């Protein structure tokens, strides 16, 4: 019987880019016949993108559409690697599933305009009908070196631009990607093109479904506070006071004196659900602190929050086994409705890698454990996770978004 959705995942850590591409692609296509419908391709910035493409195409053919981009690292059923030469390939053979790849270049000049362009394309592709049979994956280049020095392309204006065209979102997951922690220029793959400064999207429509669970790893720790003054991503005032003074009172003055080490432990969580109801992880959108504006007494967030936003300080969960519980629950819920998981795609914040958050174990290992080789798994370490929070598309920080594609279990 021909399967509606077949997937194979292969990885490589070869130093030679072409060899790495061919090796990962060969592993992904091993045991399958014919050219894949589409190939997901991810790689760290240590690999040469052109040579890597050549290597992959030597296996999957010259015309098979590619979708993906640079990332900080790769996760598969048996690999967790980052900051090296990791390459991850997922080959998908789809029957009864339409694939549409979209691109919008020029994000480095105006995130909102890029979002507007991509949103318009998505609206045209999705149409006005129901979106139950539609899944969306999208990525955008976060590294902006248009002005020479590094700045990060923000997700919020991109999403706002897309929101202008999309009244409703399908099942969707996206990521802000970068190829390393040195913010070297990145590349994206879309169809047969190798792009930069782009947002790319893959729409799947048909028998396959994408199911998503958000794994913050953070819980609210403080009372609610209100942002009272902002300048872009810099929160200047909280509760009417200098943001750094407020934070100094909250966490101690020494934190501000050595904020280089502490800043990533400060996360603002915005509850999009009932503020007085029980904690629902999927209702929270977290924004991580990435620096301190000492001159203006501001706290710099990875993504901007509007003045008037009510938030809580969030506490991280340092026992990453919770990801296993989330992943198992997601898989169980899929099987409970008579569907069969066929491919896992994990978008994971690079800061959650053990080497960076100071953990004893890799949180992604618990996702591997939950999947338990029942279906192919490809994951990427990236710099910001995007998915629906309480039906609003949000960029999340310090989060893992675990997506599982399923087909009807006939």
């Amino acid at each position, binding site marked *: 019987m021909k399967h509606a959705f077949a997937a194979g995942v292969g990885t490589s850590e070869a130093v030679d880019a072409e060899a790495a591409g061919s090796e990962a692609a060969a592993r992904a296509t091993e045991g399958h016949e014919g050219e894949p419908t589409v190939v997901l391709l991810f790689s760290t910035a240590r690999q040469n993108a052109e040579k890597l493409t050549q290597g992959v195409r030597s296996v999957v053919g010259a015309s098979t559409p590619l979708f993906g981009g640079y990332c900080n690292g790769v996760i598969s059923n048996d690999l967790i690697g980052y*900051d*090296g030469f990791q390459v991850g390939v997922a080959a998908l053979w789809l029957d009864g599933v339409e694939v549409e790849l979209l691109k919008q270049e020029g994000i480095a000049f105006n995130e909102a305009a890029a979002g507007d362009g991509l949103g318009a394309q998505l609206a045209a592709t999705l149409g006005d009908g129901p979106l139950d049979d539609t899944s969306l994956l999208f990525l955008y280049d976060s590294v902006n070196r248009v002005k020479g020095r590094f700045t990060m392309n923000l997700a919020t204006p991109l999403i706002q631009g897309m929101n202008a065209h999309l009244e409703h979102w399908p099942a969707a997951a996206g990521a802000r990607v970068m190829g390393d*922690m*040195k913010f070297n220029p990145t590349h994206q793959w879309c169809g047969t093109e190798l792009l930069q400064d782009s947002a790319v999207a893959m729409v799947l429509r048909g028998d396959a479904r994408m199911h998503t669970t958000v794994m913050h790893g953070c819980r609210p*720790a*403080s*009372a*609610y506070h209100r942002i009272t003054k902002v300048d872009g991503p810099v929160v200047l005032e909280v509760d009417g006071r200098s943001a750094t003074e407020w934070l100094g009172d*909250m*966490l*101690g003055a020494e*934190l501000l004196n050595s904020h*280089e*080490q*502490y*800043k*990533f*432990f*400060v996360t603002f969580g915005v509850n999009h659900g009932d503020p007085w109801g029980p904690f629902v992880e999927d209702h929270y959108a977290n924004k991580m602190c990435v620096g301190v504006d000492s001159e203006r007494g501001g706290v710099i967030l990875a993504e901007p929050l509007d003045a008037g936003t009510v938030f*809580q*300080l969030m*506490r*991280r969960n*340092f026992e990453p086994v919770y990801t296993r519980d989330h992943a198992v629950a997601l898989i169980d819920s899929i099987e409970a409705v008579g569907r069969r998981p066929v491919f896992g795609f994990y978008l994971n914040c*690079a*800061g959650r890698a053990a*080497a*960076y*958050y*100071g*953990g*004893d174990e890799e949180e992604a290992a618990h996702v591997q454990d939950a999947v338990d080789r029942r279906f192919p798994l490809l994951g990427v370490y990236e710099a910001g996770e995007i998915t629906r929070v309480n039906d609003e598309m949000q960029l999340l920080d310090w989060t893992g978004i675990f997506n599982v594609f399923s087909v009807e279990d006939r």
Partner: protein
Amino acid sequence: MADDLEARARYYEQFADDAASYFIRTDAELSINRRALAEKTLAFKVLSNLQDTIAIGDTDEIGRVYERTLKRIHEVVHVDRSIVFLENTAGSNIFKVAHHLGLTEQVAARASAMLFEFSEQQLGGRPTMLVNRQTRPTAFVELLQQTLSVRFFVCVPLRSEGRVFGYLLSSNDKEAYPFYPPFNETHVETYSAIAGFLATAYDNMNLYQNLREATAKLEEYNLTLEDRVKERTEDLAAIAEELREEVVKSEELLLNILPRQTAIELRRTGQAMARSFDSVTVVFSDIVGFSKASATMDAAELVAELDQIFRAFDHIVDHNDLEKLKTIGDSYMFAGGIPVPNDTHALDAVRACVEMQEYLAERRAEMERRGKTSFQMRFGVHTGPVVAGVVGSRKFAYDIWGNTVNVAAFLESGGETGRINVSDSTYELIRDDYHATARGRVKIKHDMEVEMYFVDGPVSPGADR
């Protein structure tokens, strides 16, 4: 009621904020401490990885060890660039870039053409270098930064037996928590541990090299020794062959002058015991007219003729199982029955005399045809007891003594030209095989008389054999 609720709300808000402060600070400190601990374990991870991937024998190729080490450092410590400097000339402070990872081709090409002086002054009196945002760069640090494209780095010496033979350097382009924490003293310790491993590998390489050289020398020495042994063996074989040939010659010479049994005895014991023989036939022969001929013939011609005759006699003596004793001038003396006694010595001796006469007759006929002078002989034969042996230590000869010898000599001198004059004791032993003419008792000396016979010839040719 509202005031009370508001107070409670403020209480719980403050309570929550205090808890948040405590937990977030604690979590952060715990995480930072874990990271510091992780940094301290980096060396163990690198060394453990190297132990797994580098076998002891691999240190034979130290370059490969350096390259694997750099790769492991990059995989575990996540640095941007690493360099191994090795001394340009042994014992100097001048070093060159020998191995690197992460350098661009352009920087690598430039670096490989440069020499770097790691003097105590350049290093600021410290054996290691730690360069981060907090340290003030020296002129040497700036030189390294500019020429090798290294910004923040740690550099430690590679030592062997107290001597610095290289440096290990790793650099990062950025300092940014938590991804690129600044290099600190923990990293110096980490790299010092890795440097210790490399130094051990270097020492092992030297040991292997020394061992290999020693083995090669030993093999070369063995080959030389084998050649020498072979040459010496060949020399010895040649000498042994020469010796053997000399021994053969010597034995042949000895056998020429001594009976075989006597020669064997003499060679074995250094002497030959004199032995008594009860019955031996002794023959004296003498050329008739030799003195007269020697006065008229050319001396050389005379000796040549004598040599010719006596060689023929030697042959006759040999094939009749007789023992030649000696020649005295023109006299030829031999005997039968010595040194190995037998029963045929009288017949053997008489037969030899007959053959000698026949030879002389043929010789004489030939010489007369050529107009030359030739000789006739007298033979005296007597059978009786003798003592035989070798006397003296130089120019020794096997000889016999006793009255039998004297009687035989008298029989020769008392004979006639061309006749074989035998005593009765000999006659008694040959009478069945030879005709003889009795001469009666003939006085030889001191009124001693001997019954004599002239041998006329065999009863029938070959009858005595």
